[in-house]
């Protein structure tokens, strides 16, 4: 499996584990750096951590039908 495939897989696992939170993951190590329901508070933590190469993501609500 490619790195990209692994990244997608790890993100999906993390979204299952933290279904209501925004998740910040290190894109190199796949380690969860921070999680939280409040995006503003999480952004402040992220600024303090100064962590390079992070993926910021959240599980979309599976009950929402999106028309964009």
């Amino acid at each position, binding site marked *: 499996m*490619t*790195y*990209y*495939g*692994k*990244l*997608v897989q790890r*993100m*999906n696992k993390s979204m299952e584990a933290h279904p209501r939170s*925004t998740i*910040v993951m290190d*894109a*190199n*190590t*796949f380690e969860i750096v921070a999680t939280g329901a409040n*995006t*503003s508070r*999480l*952004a*402040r933590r*992220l*600024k303090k951590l100064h962590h*390079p*190469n*992070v*993926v*910021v*993501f*959240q*599980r*979309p*609500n599976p009950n*929402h039908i*999106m*028309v*964009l």
Partner: protein
Amino acid sequence: MELIYPYPGKRPVIIVSIEDVLTGNRYFFQMLLDTGAERTCFPARYAASFGHDNHHKDVKAHEMHGLGGSCKCYSHSVRLGLIDPVKSTAANLVIAWKSKLERASFAEKLDCGFGLLGMDIMSEWSSVTFSGKSGGGRIKILI
């Protein structure tokens, strides 16, 4: 160059690099390839996560229109990039392509866990092809 991305589920979503043009800091975020969107946009509440402040005096606000009516958007200096899905490794993330466009909108009413990668960015590519079923598929981008 051909870049192929798998996507799980119903939505053609890829992980895109977001570079803060002002600081050079890089983040990654999920984006839906949305051919119906004229402009690339992100949920406004994520601006701070990418080092931007929607309420800074120099930030220009504008309106955009969609299914939910009109909404306020904040324009920020970010450049999008595509991860090389083959050459990238955990130790070395290779960015295969960077957008010429250095701005994106952060929309107040966009409330989902991903951004919309619109035609302003996709028009910089040679082509984009979607294939797959409801359980997932792949996106091929030619640049």
